Each structure stands twice: as C-alpha cells, then as structure tokens.
C-alpha cells in the first residue's frame, strides 16, 4: 500500500527529476571536483551550476553559498562563525522554539560561559519582538531566529528582525530549513547575514545542506582542512547530492506558486474538515502567519502516539507533538513555550503536506481520523469526565 505521506516537515520524497539529475554522478562522472584533469573539472563545473541555481532561489550570489552536509551543520557553522569572529562579544539571542539544531547548541554555549537569551512566544507561537529588542546589547554577538517553525509552521518576521539586529551591530542568522521552497525568499532585499537550509526538506536527498553567508560577513570555518568551498568548508564535496540540491532548488522556484495555492488549499481543507468533524480539536499556532503546507492540530483528551499508531494502520504518516518515546512524557518544547495546555499538547498531531499530495489522500484522512479519535476517547477516562463537567480544571 502506498503511504499517505503527510510528514514532509520531517523529510520529503526526492523528486524524480532530482534523482535523474544525480545518477550520472555516481558511476559515470565520478571525478573529484578539485582534480586538475578535465574528468574532474567537468564535475566542478556541475557543482558550480548547482550553486548558481540555489543562489537564484534565494536571491543571493553564488559566491555566498557554502554547501554543507545538513541543516544542523549549517546552523552550527553559522553560530560558531559569529562567535569566533567576534571573540569579545559573549551574548547570544535565540528563541524558545528553535529546532534542537540551534536550541541544544545555544544551551551548550550557555554552559560554557556565554550569556544566552531565549526569546519567548505567545499562545499563538508569535515571537515577543519587544523582548528580543530589549535584550540586544553591545555584547550581543549573534541573534539566531528561525524563519518558520517546524512543528507549527508559524513564520517569524525575520526580515524586520534582521534589519534591527544588524543596525545594532550583531550578526543575524536564520534557520530557514522549513521555509526554503515554501515561502518566497529574496536575500537581495533584506539584511539577513546567514541562512541555513537543508536539502531533504525540499525534495533533494538527505545529507546535503547549505549555508548562505552574505558578502562581507566575518566568517570562520567549522570544518578545517582542504580548500573546498573556498576554504570555508573543508571536505570533498557530496557531489551528487549537491547537484541534486541544485535541481531541487530549480524545481522549488517553479513550484512555489503551486505550494502556496494548491498545497495550501489541501492543507486548509484537511484542517477545516477535521475541526468540523472532531469536537474538542484546535489548531496550534497563528493560522494567519503559517507555512502553506503545515497544520498542527490538538485533539483533547487523547494521546498523540496512540493516534499515530492507529493512523499507521491505514499507512497514514504524520507526527506528534509529544515526545512520548523519551519516557518523560513531556510534550514538545514548542507547544510548552506556547503555553498549550497539557490536555491539548499531548494529543497534538502535525500534518505537513507537499506537492505530491492529492485531494483523494486528504479526503481519506478526513474520513479515517474522526473514528480514530472517537475510539481513543472512548478509552480515555477524561473524555467521559469532560463530557460530564464540560470544563476542565487543568
């Protein structure tokens, strides 16, 4: 049975066009782009072509793109680069809802003598901008704010923040892993200094990413060694994947409109119908400022893992906001930061669509999910109680 894949914020299917573009670079054109001979040199030319395509998607110059091994490496590179090239500054600002790629690094740096400010969000997941600006100081080396949140899809006003932060003399970095390919980005028109992206979120393979570094930004490499990427990221290039990422960037540019029209329409239908058919369900996050493909829906009084496992019976793939596997049963830090009540946080499910989803698939989820929730609620001691009281103390 073909999966009904609605977990595209976790990873995406590699586009067939991307696979096709990559294949020759495994067995036929396997040269090293750093080699002197034509056999390797032609590969280098292809890597540069990929760089140009990716730069075009972002409104950047090709020399501003560094290929990396993943979104996480891009995030680490950016943050360390800002700290190493501004050694007298000891303060970092980021948000409470970052992906672990930024959050855990920031927490580590906090334990190593840096001062770290985590900017809070409101109940809809919007960033407290005043809090951010109030904490900017001459000691602030870097401000790192994600473009869009992976769990709720909420979009932050990074362009506005970038202007304020750079005016203040700090470096501004954004983790745009979830934004690239889903919302228009034009780095020619904003002050973002560094931007991370990851191939596997936009129909390129896993294990390739990129970091945009604006011309003139002070930089220090994360991986040191050979002269690849003009000395900014040593290590022989993941040639085939980079070529795949270039192709995926080209496709993303072409599909941006579809993503924001057809995919958004599917997402909206899914959300609207589920909310209409399932009582005590609500959307997590600001519904107006969201990625077009993402919806996080809380189903009260049931637990996320159980929902996922029952959906799994129909080969429907989504993900839950609770970290039930960790044993702590703590709901996600993102929903916690938003103050989503536990009644809802534990039963939150994220659906993230892509251009490969069809209306039939959405209809099937709309049909299958309400009985799943109903079935679990029948098992839940709180549902009957809630029905009696019609209000919950917790």
């Amino acid at each position, binding site marked *: 049975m073909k999966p009904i894949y609605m977990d595209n914020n976790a990873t995406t299917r590699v586009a067939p066009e991307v696979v096709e573009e990559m294949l020759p670079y495994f067995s036929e054109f396997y040269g090293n782009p750093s080699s002197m001979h034509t056999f390797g040199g032609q590969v280098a030319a292809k890597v540069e072509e990929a760089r140009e395509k990716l730069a075009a998607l972002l409104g950047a110059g090709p020399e501003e793109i560094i290929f990396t091994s993943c979104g996480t490496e891009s995030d680490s590179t950016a943050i360390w680069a800002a700290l190493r090239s501004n050694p007298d500054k000891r303060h970092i600002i980021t948000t409470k809802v970052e992906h672990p790629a930024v959050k855990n690094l920031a927490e580590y740096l906090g334990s190593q003598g840096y001062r770290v400010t985590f900017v809070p969000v409101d109940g809809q997941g919007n960033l407290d901008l005043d809090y951010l600006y109030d904490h900017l100081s001459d000691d602030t080396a870097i401000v790192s704010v994600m473009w869009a949140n992976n769990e709720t899809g909420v979009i932050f006003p990074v362009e506005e923040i970038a202007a304020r932060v750079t005016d203040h003399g700090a470096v501004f970095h954004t983790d745009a892993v979830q934004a690239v390919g889903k919302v228009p980005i034009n780095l020619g028109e904003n002050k973002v200094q560094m931007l991370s992206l990851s191939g596997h979120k936009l129909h390129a393979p896993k294990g390739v990413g990129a970091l945009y570094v604006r011309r003139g930004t002070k930089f220090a490499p994360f991986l040191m060694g050979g002269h690849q990427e003009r000395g900014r990221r040593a290590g022989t290039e993941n040639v085939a994947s980079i070529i795949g990422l270039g192709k995926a960037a080209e496709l993303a540019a072409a599909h941006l409109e579809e993503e924001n029209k057809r995919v958004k329409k599917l997402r909206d239908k899914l959300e609207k119908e589920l909310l209409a058919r399932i009582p005590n369900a609500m959307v997590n996050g600001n519904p107006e400022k969201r990625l077009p493909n993402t919806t996080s829906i809380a189903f009260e009084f049931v637990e996320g893992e159980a929902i996922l496992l029952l959906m799994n019976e129909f080969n429907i793939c989504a993900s839950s906001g609770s970290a039930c596997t960790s044993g702590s049963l703590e709901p996600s830090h993102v929903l916690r930061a938003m103050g989503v009540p*536990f009644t809802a946080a534990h039963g939150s499910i994220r659906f993230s669509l892509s251009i490969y989803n069809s209306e039939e698939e959405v209809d099937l989820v709309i049909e299958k999910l309400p009985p799943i929730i109903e079935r679990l609620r029948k098992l839940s001691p709180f549902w009957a109680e809630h029905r009696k009281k019609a209000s919950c103390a917790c």
Partner: protein
Amino acid sequence: MWEYTDKVKEHFLNPRNVGEIEDADGVGEVGSLACGDALKLTFKVDENERIVDAKFKTFGCASAIASSSALTEMIIGKTVDEAAKITNEQIAEYLGGLPKEKMHCSVMGRDALEKAIAHYRGQPEKKIEGEIVCECFGVTDVQIRRAVNENKLASIEEVTNYIKAGGGCGNCHEKIQAIIDAELGRPAEKKPKPKRLTNIEKIRLVQETLEREIRPQLLQDGGNIELVDVDGDTVLVKLQGSCASCQMSQVTLKDYVEAKLKELVTDSLVVEEVR
C-alpha cells in the same frame, strides 16, 4: 519507529475490558492528563474474593493502553490475594516485553491495581507528605521546597524543569513563587545601597578582593592576575600563567573577575585586560 511486540499491538488495537464497572468493589485511579498518561481500573469480586470482572479506561500511548488491557485479563479469575502479588514486570512479560522507555506503563498498571485493592479492602490511601500545590502533576509543597533547596532553583520555570510542578494549567504559579521566595529568603530587604566609595577606598577594596578572593582561585587553575591600574570605574589587569594563553580567558575575566569585583566592591566596575 515503534518497537512493540505483536502482543502489545494486538492489545492496543483490540483492547479487552474497556469501560467502567458501575457498582465496582475496587476502584483505582492513577496518573493525570498533565502527566501524559492515566488509568482508571475497576473490578468486581464474588463471595470468595475472586475477581469476576475488571474494566479499565486509559489515557496514554499504545503501550499504556495495552498494559491496561493485559492487566484486566491477568486479574480476572484470580483471588484478590493472588492479584495483589502481580508485579509490573509480569505485566510487561505478559505482553512479550515492553521497550524500556515504556516500562512506566506497566508500573502505572501495577499502581492502579494496588490502589484498587486498597480501596476494596478499605485501607486508607497512603498518606502523602505535605499539601498538594500543583494539582496537574500532584506535586506537594514539601517536594517543591526540597527541590528548590537542593538545586538552588530561583524561578518557576526551573522548578517546572526539575519536578514538573507548574508546567500544567499554571494556577499554582503564585504558590510556587511564594515557596521560592520563602526558601531563598526573598523578598529579603534589598541590600542597602553601598555608600559611594572614595577613589582610595575603591582601590583598596579592589586590591583586597583580588588578593583574598580572586587570586587564590586562579592560582588553583595554574593562572595568576596582576592589578595594573584603576582608572575611574575601569580596573586594568594582566592575566598570567595559564590564564594568559587560555581560550576562555575572556570568560574568566568577565564572568569571574568582573562579577566578583562588582559583587564585592561596587556595581559599576568594568574589568579590562592589558596585554
């Protein structure tokens, strides 16, 4: 991925004995919505104290539901005395094993059974120490006080991270804050503002603090510090020994030396390094 046995999956997909017995002889409730799992177990006995029926309602993940279902199957037909001997490992075994991060599900089953049997026998509930502050997680003032003291917790957020209290509805935040304040001796009167120091007093205090507090600490780590000058509020120092070559010397300077001087001399001091 779910690493559940076929038996866990089967009990999850087809749970036995779901529901609640109206006039039950034993009732045991554990967990809460906030905790992420909860179980209500009810059973009925015959005149020989044999459990003839048992039902459950569970909020939780697949293994919590499967464990509850297994538990009811395990106790039906047993006498209360026999049932009382069931351990959480036996519940897990019955299901062909549980992933280790899911063992708490079997513990929850065992706890509910214990409570239901205590209820049946008319035994008083185990008395909890203190008074519940956080209703969502059932955390008492005694537990919060201990956590605050042992871990030097200074904010509600820290308390939540340590013992979950306050992480639910938030109704108890005021009470938690009051406990923190009481334990940390706050709101202690703000330290009286130190009177303005004359330059001579300031230099003497800086010297004293360096000698008494800071240098011994740095010496321990193979470093040293020399006072070069005090210019207004700027204290100029030279780092020596291992401090001079240390990557983290800026941290030492700002987070340790400057912080100490601010604390013990005056708040307005800034420390700068002369190389």
